């Protein structure tokens, strides 16, 4: 059996999906769009369950709604589990009324039932079931209660049929039934409603008769049809709620109390700054860099061990070089940063699941609007400090098209976790005591660049002034340890996997192109290698920010397109082969190939790598969200242009300061 999981945002869908599937899940993409498509097998059964995007309605106004609709129409699931936040039942049941119009069985999973008592709510689920003529189960996805019952219900097929209960007033109901009679297709009741609403998706089925019916109804209610239908759905829901839900007393909720502090007129901003600083301090600052040194030491020991071991088994010099200078140097340079990333991912996950992220969007909206962005732009920026790809994907929640596009183009400016290695390497070596300050300044520079770029874009490209911001303010929730661990593990694992695949492959290729000449002779001087000759052709591009024609820096920066951390790997491999060093700190030894770097060019080179075109993964995500290749190319050119100009300016100013 194929089951679709449908529900509002924040209804606990991901939590339920994880609880129901355990470890049997795979993540793919919806055809044509980047939203994650999660599919899994329900524990202890062979039923497939698909997690649909969080939606509030099945109207065609957002891409999430469209995806869900297409899924139901094209892939025809056998059952829909409608997950409902039991503490917010009125809004949730609105979507339910739409799902119940489909020709598909629906189970209502009343989630968050563990919170009902605290909110002094009592829900009579049997009554609800008999009113809606559909099966209802009370669950708590978080605590795990009711899940076995839900699975058993599905497995035994004891699901009430969906008899399409009448929910509208008589005249509207008649019109819908009349249209449905003329339609020989599945979901005919649902389609009839959409035809009355004049939904573009079904324009081919429109007729004069339907138009007349619509007109008649609009006249009678003195309103337009979408409003009439929405009104009557909600009237029905309110009636149902009245009969099944009892609210005992009103108490000030914990959320209200917390918001008095976190959304306080004076305290909100300082608290936000403190939280951001704490995250930065943990992930990038003192704590983060301590962990890097530790892992770096381990990698160094491993490298020594391998080279001794290979020598002891009489491996040929090129094999030792491939393993030590190519693979370990390249992959190790990236793996150093895993602990830092784990800290960063934990912080971001906490911001998201506790509900604080929605508050940030809420109170900064006013400020961001001035720059042509939305408060919700902040979510992509914060998520983007982990990885730009999910960051770019999370721009979907931004209603306004202009604000959304600008956010997509600007989000890659935020230093993502893969850029951390670059910052750590350069700032650590050249700014020693001021290391923390310098890396902080880069984040600050990123924010300033984003805001200034936004102003420029708004002035010249995105001139529309309509905008909207509609979002639910979810309650504060305690984070769930299991969910947190899983989320952090998934992200960390995918980073490690990249180190083991793309970075490994690149490191081997670089080692190869560095060790061989165009005549495929091994052991030539690096200056005569294939890679060096390619780099030399292009090194003029970086002259204005390095003050030196460096083929090594040039090819490394270009490899940032594959993955930003590859810049560091590449430098480690090049320095290792050129100068016989393997340890990170020795990359910049005075006599070595990167010995020309000084604080000014180091800062400039960091700025360029941070702000220039993001990695291919992020460019792909931009392409999908922006919709056309042309727009994507413009965005990438814009980013690289900004990066180059900033790099040159920084080098100029830096060199002046150093002269003084």
């Amino acid at each position, binding site marked *: 059996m194929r089951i679709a999981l449908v529900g509002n945002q924040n209804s606990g869908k991901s939590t339920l999906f994880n609880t129901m599937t355990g470890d049997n899940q795979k993540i793919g993409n919806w055809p044509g769009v980047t939203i994650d498509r999660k599919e899994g097998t329900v524990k202890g059964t062979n039923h497939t369950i698909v997690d649909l995007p969080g939606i*509030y309605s099945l109207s065609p106004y957002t891409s999430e709604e469209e995806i869900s609709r297409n899924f139901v129409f094209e892939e025809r699931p056998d059952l829909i589990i409608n997950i409902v936040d039991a503490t917010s039942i009125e809004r949730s049941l609105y979507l339910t009324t739409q799902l119940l119009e489909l020709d598909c069985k629906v189970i209502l999973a009343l989630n968050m039932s563990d919170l009902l008592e605290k909110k002094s709510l009592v829900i009579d689920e049997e009554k609800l079931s008999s009113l809606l003529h559909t099966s209802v189960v009370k669950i708590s996805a978080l605590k795990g209660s009711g899940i076995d019952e839900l699975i058993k219900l599905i497995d035994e097929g004891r699901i009430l049929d969906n008899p399409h209960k009448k929910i509208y007033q008589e005249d509207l109901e008649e019109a819908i039934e009349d249209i449905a009679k003329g339609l020989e297709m599945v979901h005919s009741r649902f389609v009839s409603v959409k035809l009355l609403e004049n939904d573009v998706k079904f324009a081919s089925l429109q007729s004069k008769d339907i138009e007349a019916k619509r007109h008649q109804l609009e006249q009678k209610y003195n309103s337009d049809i979408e409003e009439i239908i929405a*009104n009557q759905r909600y009237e029905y829901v309110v009636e149902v709620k009245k009969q099944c839900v009892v609210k005992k007393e009103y108490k000030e909720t914990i959320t209200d109390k917390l918001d008095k502090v976190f*959304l306080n007129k004076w305290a909100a901003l300082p608290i936000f700054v403190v939280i951001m600083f704490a995250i930065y301090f943990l992930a990038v600052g003192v704590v983060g860099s301590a962990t890097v040194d530790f892992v770096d030491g381990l990698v160094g020991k491993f490298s020594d061990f391998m080279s001794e071991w290979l020598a002891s088994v009489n491996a040929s010099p090129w094999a030792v070089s491939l393993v030590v200078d190519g693979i370990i140097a390249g992959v190790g340079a990236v793996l150093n940063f895993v602990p830092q990333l784990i800290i960063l991912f934990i912080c971001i996950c906490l911001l998201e699941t506790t509900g604080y992220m929605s508050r940030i969007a809420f109170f900064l*909206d*006013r400020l961001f609007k001035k720059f042509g962005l939305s408060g919700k732009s902040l979510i992509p920026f914060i998520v983007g400090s982990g990885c730009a790809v999910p960051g770019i994907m999370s721009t979907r929640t931004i209603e306004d098209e202009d604000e959304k596009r600008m956010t997509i183009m600007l989000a890659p400016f935020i230093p993502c976790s893969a850029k951390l290695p670059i910052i750590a390497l350069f700032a650590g070596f050249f700014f020693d005591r001021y290391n923390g300050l310098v890396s902080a300044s880069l984040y600050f520079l990123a924010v300033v660049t984003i805001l200034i770029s936004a102003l420029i874009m708004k002035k010249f490209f995105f001139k529309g002034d309509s*905008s*909207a911001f*509609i979002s639910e303010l979810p309650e504060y929730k305690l984070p769930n340890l299991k969910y947190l661990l899983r989320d952090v593990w998934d992200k960390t694992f995918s980073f490690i996997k990249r180190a083991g695949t793309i970075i490994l492959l690149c490191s081997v290729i670089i080692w190869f192109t560095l060790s061989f000449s165009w005549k495929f002779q091994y052991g030539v001087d690096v200056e005569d290698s294939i890679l060096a000759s390619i780099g030399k052709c292009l090194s003029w591009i970086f002259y204005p920010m390095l003050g030196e024609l460096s083929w090594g820096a040039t090819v490394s920066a270009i490899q940032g397109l594959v993955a930003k951390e590859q810049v560091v790997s590449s430098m480690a491999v090049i320095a290792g082969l050129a100068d016989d060093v393997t340890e990170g700190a020795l990359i910049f030894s005075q006599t070595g190939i990167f010995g020309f770097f000084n604080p000014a060019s180091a800062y400039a080179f960091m700025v360029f790598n941070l702000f220039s075109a993001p990695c291919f993964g992020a460019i792909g995500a931009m392409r999908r969200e922006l919709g056309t290749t042309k727009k994507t190319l413009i965005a990438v050119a814009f980013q690289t242009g900004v990066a180059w100009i900033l790099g040159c300016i920084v080098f100029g100013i830096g060199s002046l300061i150093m002269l003084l």
Partner: protein
Amino acid sequence: MKKRIYNKGEECHMSDLIKGQKALVTGLHGDNLALRRRLLDMGVTTGVEVFIKKIAPMGDPVDIEIRGYELCIRKSDMRNIDVKVI
């Protein structure tokens, strides 16, 4: 300019309400159809009761309580919603 405060029974736009006021929605207008539909889907329909619960520290957007949950919305969008103070 001092903001005019609307009293019980008076009609105005939702954006004119101040923190702590309650009102009934009397109609939606504006020509952004997608926005309108989204408001309807989120439960902003004629006759529904709203309560101005929180206002962002910088004065915009506003958090309203509606149908038992909280909805954030910009003042400029609230101008498209007619209400009657209760």
